[in-house]
């Protein structure tokens, strides 16, 4: 009777298929590797519109408007219901602005000014208006965007960098 226990078998794992998979995976990852100055993960409850833009995102969005919430610097400001801020959360607004958004942005704007006064020697820079990066769900109406822009404008932010999904050309 043949005994298996006494036999000395050499088992070798064939690693070549694994090497092939790794090579393909690395090639794919290197191809899709992004060298953008800012890498930002888009919120799960948010879909961005597509764009032909070649301009990369250069700072983390300050205003994020998901399908159901509005954030300023990661701080929840209000809910969004049917593409609008509920009336009770608009606050004491002026010409359609959203008061809590204005208050938060004004606080940031004032802080930026204080920093500019303390650090800058160029007087032209002191009166300079700010830029804001805004990320907004593609299904929201212009009315909501207008309200946010108006709030920001009153807080002296006049340039908006609207975040979009960049289509590869």
């Amino acid at each position: 009777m043949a005994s298996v226990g006494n036999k000395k078998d050499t088992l070798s794992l064939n690693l070549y298929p694994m090497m092939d998979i790794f090579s393909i995976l690395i090639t794919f990852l290197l191809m899709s590797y992004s060298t953008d100055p800012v890498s930002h993960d888009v919120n799960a409850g948010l879909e961005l519109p597509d764009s032909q833009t070649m301009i990369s995102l250069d700072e983390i969005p300050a205003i994020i408007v998901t399908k159901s919430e509005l954030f300023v610097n990661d701080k929840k400001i209000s809910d969004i219901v049917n593409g609008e801020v509920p009336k009770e959360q608009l606050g004491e607004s002026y010409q359609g602005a959203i008061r809590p958004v204005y208050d938060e942005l004004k606080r940031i704007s004032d802080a930026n000014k204080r920093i500019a006064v303390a650090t800058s020697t160029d007087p032209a820079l002191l009166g300079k208006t700010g830029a804001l990066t805004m990320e907004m769900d593609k299904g929201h109406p212009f009315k909501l965007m207008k309200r946010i822009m108006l709030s920001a404008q009153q807080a002296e932010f006049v340039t908006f960098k609207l975040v979009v999904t960049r289509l590869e050309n």
Partner: protein
Amino acid sequence: MRRKRKGIKRDEPTDIELNIIPFIDVFSLLNTFLLFSAVFMATGIIEVQVPFLSNAPAPKEEGKRTLEVKIDAAKNKVQVITEYSKDPRNEQKFDFPNSKEGIDRMHERLVAIRQANPTQDKLTFYSEDDVIWENISALLDSAKFRKQTDPIFQVKNPKSGEMEQDTQFVFSKIVMGSVIL
């Protein structure tokens, strides 16, 4: 006398195997690093401005007769309006359906306007409240960015004041005219 070479005899069958374990180690580490740092969706920006009242002195061009280019977007229709800032105003309106084909045609019209007015790189954008951001971004895209088949325009360098080639934009400055205090 012929000397015998020491070492591997050519006639003998050899069983050489490449040690691929270090390769796998490197690949695994590289894979892990790339998977952690990968961004699978490239994000970009469209820069726009809102009108702002300032105490700063008015620019020199204020008194000149310049062409104003406007886009007025509604849910089903887009209108491109051109008008001079002083008499004779020569107002012209071009209507397009708010669809992919309509936006493409609008782009062609804007390119023609820009070609006829090489110094004009500013466009004012108006929209109705119910137009969604996806649609607005398509319109802004079409108005702002140059396609590969479009001619290259000249733009004034704000620092040097010299005209330079602008390979990226049709209208580089877009003002959201609907956002007015």
